[in-house]
């Protein structure tokens, strides 16, 4: 409820009216943007929560198995075994645009997952190691997927918050202020008009009285 500091003139009022129109239009657009982002976000967030539960379970299992291996095997041997991995993880990074938010699209190159050769000798390593690494390799695509979705959620959440603030600022501050100021100028102009009208009437009366004498 704060009036802007403006001159109560007709020109100022036209300017403010134009600004009010822009603000109202911007408010509507931002509101639509927020609603659509929210819809997408809720879908993604659900997926995110589901995937995280899955990955966390699978990963704890695989890592637990790996920890068992490191118990069985000589630490130096274990380190040696994984020193030169046969697998490599190749990623394809793209960019997608969700409601003008740049989000990454991360894909694992399938070719890099197919390779299941063992990179270590069978003699010095425990059999569990094979299983543990296999298990980890199976979780990996899901982990990458989780990374993509979680990042997208992060970015979207941030943008939604910003948009919501903008919508609220427009709705509760900017637009009421503009409306109030326009009303103030209208009143002031009307008052001036009434003022000059009465003055004219008074002058007319004075002139009539003088002529009659």
């Amino acid at each position, binding site marked *: 409820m704060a009036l802007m500091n403006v001159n109560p003139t007709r020109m100022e009022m036209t300017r403010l009216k134009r600004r009010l129109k822009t603000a109202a239009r911007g408010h509507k657009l931002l509101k639509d943007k927020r609603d659509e982002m929210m819809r997408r976000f809720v879908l993604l967030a659900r997926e995110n929560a589901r995937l995280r539960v899955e990955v*966390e379970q699978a990963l704890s299992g695989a890592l637990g198995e790996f920890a068992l291996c*490191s118990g069985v095997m000589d630490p130096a041997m274990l380190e040696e075994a994984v020193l030169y991995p046969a697998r490599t993880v190749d990623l394809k990074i793209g960019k997608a645009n969700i409601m003008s938010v740049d989000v990454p699209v991360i894909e694992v190159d399938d070719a890099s997952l197919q390779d299941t050769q063992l990179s270590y000798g069978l003699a010095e390593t425990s059999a569990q190691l094979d299983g543990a690494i296999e298990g980890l390799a199976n979780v990996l695509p899901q982990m990458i997927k989780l990374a993509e979705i979680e990042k997208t959620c992060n970015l979207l959440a941030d943008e939604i918050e910003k948009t919501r603030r903008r919508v609220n600022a427009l709705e509760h501050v900017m637009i009421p202020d503009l409306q109030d100021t326009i009303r103030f100028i209208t009143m002031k102009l009307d008052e001036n008009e009434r003022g000059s009208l009465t003055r004219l009437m008074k002058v007319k009366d004075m002139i009539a009285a003088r002529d009659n004498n």
Partner: protein
Amino acid sequence: MPKVAAIGSKDVVLAFKALGITAASVSSPDEARQKIHELAKQQYAVIFITEDLAESVSETISRYKTETLPAIIPIPGASGSSGLGMKHVRANVEKAVGADILFNNSKEEG
């Protein structure tokens, strides 16, 4: 070439090394912080970090939160999940929606 990295205690990252993921074993939060900056500079796309470390370097992680890449993802260590990752998901929802609307669902699932 965009790459994947894992940061954590030695026995955890060793496992990831077998998959061809760049493994950075760190022993202190300071080291982890430095490593994150280093990896981010080298254009790593995904950085996995174990939950115990993620908790102690949370301010560094939140610095990269609004950047498109890298995605820094907390993962459970060998001792199982402490729920930190889920907490992040929930915090996201709360930030965006203003209320935790997924809480009931995820409780049923997990």
